[in-house]
């Protein structure tokens, strides 16, 4: 079983009721209600291999959570087929759900009023995990996520970051070969994020766990995923290597100069003659940015000419960040001029 997830022409339509305004409208709504069909996911197809870590990204409302709910069998698709771990998520429910782990960053799966370890004990019984397996696996998980001291506290007394680490541990209690994470790092501080990322990398290497991850924090994706699937209004607009996305879009570099005295665009522009480059003023005083193509001789030439002509106090070279690339794509809704 090489393909862990196979999705073909998957579609989900929601019937959405709209309310008429006012009291009169409310009475009319009693007898016949207006509704419109919203297609949250429109005929998407993709496959994921075992051991892959895939970033599933897109704007708010793009349909990410809806797809995950169909992949985990919570929602019934309107159309199309889903095969996960070789099973149809809607048939063989109990066997299927034992083979996946899910974390919804937005809602807790632990029992609110009881200590974390009691929740773990219940899940251990629910997933039928033997004592030896539990010991061997969870001791390590609890250690790496550093949640040992939290185990005897009720969930409602934990902070968001503490809770999220416990949620992750709970989702992995039965050591599933496939993990769905819907915004697992939402609202977490940098250190906790780092801990979670390292942990995910580690289990991916150790057990070849396949991970499908949605997040709005692109640094998560950069740190973890080689492959991204980008969704826009229910359609896949990019499916491929994150690196390719960068090389298609992020060709240029930005050289930021901090000048010792005031300069004007008229003074600077002549320096760029015959070069593929352009100046933009920065918000900061006496700082100008040269946008250039990513070629050695252009970069050296620009720096050489500027330094020769003016006194400068600082130079920085930036690559265009993934965030900027993604922002551009979201704004235009296409990648590289074509819709995938």
């Amino acid at each position, binding site marked *: 079983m090489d393909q862990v997830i196979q999705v073909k022409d998957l579609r989900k339509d929601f019937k959405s009721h709209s309310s008429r305004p006012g009291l009169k409208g409310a009475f009319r709504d009693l007898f016949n209600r207006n509704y419109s069909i919203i297609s949250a996911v429109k005929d998407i197809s993709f496959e994921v291999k075992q051991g892959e870590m895939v970033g599933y990204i897109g704007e708010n409302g793009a349909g990410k959570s809806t797809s995950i709910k169909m992949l985990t069998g919570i929602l*019934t698709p309107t159309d199309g087929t889903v095969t996960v771990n070789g099973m149809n998520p809607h048939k063989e429910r*109990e066997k299927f*759900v034992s083979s996946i782990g899910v974390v*919804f960053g937005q*809602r807790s799966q632990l*029992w609110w*009023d*009881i*200590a974390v370890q009691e929740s773990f004990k219940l899940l251990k019984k*629910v997933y039928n995990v033997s004592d030896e397996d539990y010991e061997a696996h969870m001791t390590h998980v609890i250690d790496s996520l550093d949640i040992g001291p939290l185990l005897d506290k009720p969930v409602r007394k934990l902070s968001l970051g503490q809770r999220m680490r416990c949620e992750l541990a709970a989702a992995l209690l039965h050591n599933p070969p496939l993990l769905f994470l819907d915004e697992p790092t939402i609202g977490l501080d940098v250190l906790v994020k780092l801990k979670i990322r390292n942990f995910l990398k580690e289990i991916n290497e150790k057990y070849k766990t396949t991970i499908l991850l949605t997040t709005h924090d692109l640094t998560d994706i950069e740190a973890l995923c080689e492959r991204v699937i980008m969704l826009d209004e229910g359609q896949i607009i990019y499916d491929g290597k994150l690196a390719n996305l960068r090389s298609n879009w992020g060709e240029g570099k930005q050289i930021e100069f901090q000048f010792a005295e005031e300069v004007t665009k008229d003074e600077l522009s002549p320096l760029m003659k015959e070069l593929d480059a352009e100046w933009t003023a920065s918000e900061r005083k006496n700082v100008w940015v040269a946008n250039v193509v990513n070629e050695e001789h252009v970069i050296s030439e620009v720096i050489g000419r500027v330094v020769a002509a003016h006194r400068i106090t600082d130079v920085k070279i930036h690559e265009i960040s993934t965030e900027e690339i993604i922002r551009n794509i979201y704004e235009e809704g296409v990648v590289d001029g074509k819709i995938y």
Partner: protein
Amino acid sequence: MAKYIEMIRIRFLMMLAYRTNYYSGILIYSINIGAYYFLWSAIYGDKGEIEGLSVIQMTTYIAVAWMARAFYFNNIDREIAQEIKEGKVAVEFIRPYHYLTMKTMQGLGEGIFRLGFFSVPGMIIVSLIFPINFSAALSTWLFFMVSIIFSFIVNTQINLLTGVMTFFFFNNDGLIRAKRVVIDLFSGLLLPISFYPVWAQSVMDFLPFKAISYIPSMIFTDGFSRNEVWDALLFQFVWALILIIPIQVLWIIAKRQLIVQGG
């Protein structure tokens, strides 16, 4: 099976986490029993018996009806409705267990907790204050125990049914409240069914509600003859079976058209 039993234990822990509810519960139940005791004493006046029940039997009926209620009563309809509204069912659907069975187990955990820590001590206290007649016959106690297990089953099934309706109506607070009133009235908690007009009694024969409170309380007070006891238990058993059907049907339809809110 182990997972369902573990759930009962978890529910115990949850009940312990909210001990204050438990103390206020004792107070409310005592007030209810006391109020009905004085009400019925006034109604009886110096009449020996009404509808075949003596005043002592009546007091016993009221006391045991409330104590049994502590066992069969649960709020799982409200919990299910809330979990549906908040989108928490999503989590329940990714667990390898049957959601409704798990809910039933939670109800059972709650029931056993209250039976042990509330009904039994409560009954002892009540019997010290009010004249209550405990049956000497072992068979009465056995029948009573079987009967309150059925009470729990039937009441829980009705709760599951009301809870699952949330999938279809979304906001069914009204339905849940109506159900509560109907059960308090028609189950025989406030008034034995034999006190109702004859036509109402025959309607009640075709409804499951008297299986919840009237039957176990009548058994406990020795208000039934041996034959009537067997008929009553059969009545409970048949309803427990019948109610499985609408629950299963609704559940299957609900799963198919489940919409999870938010996320």
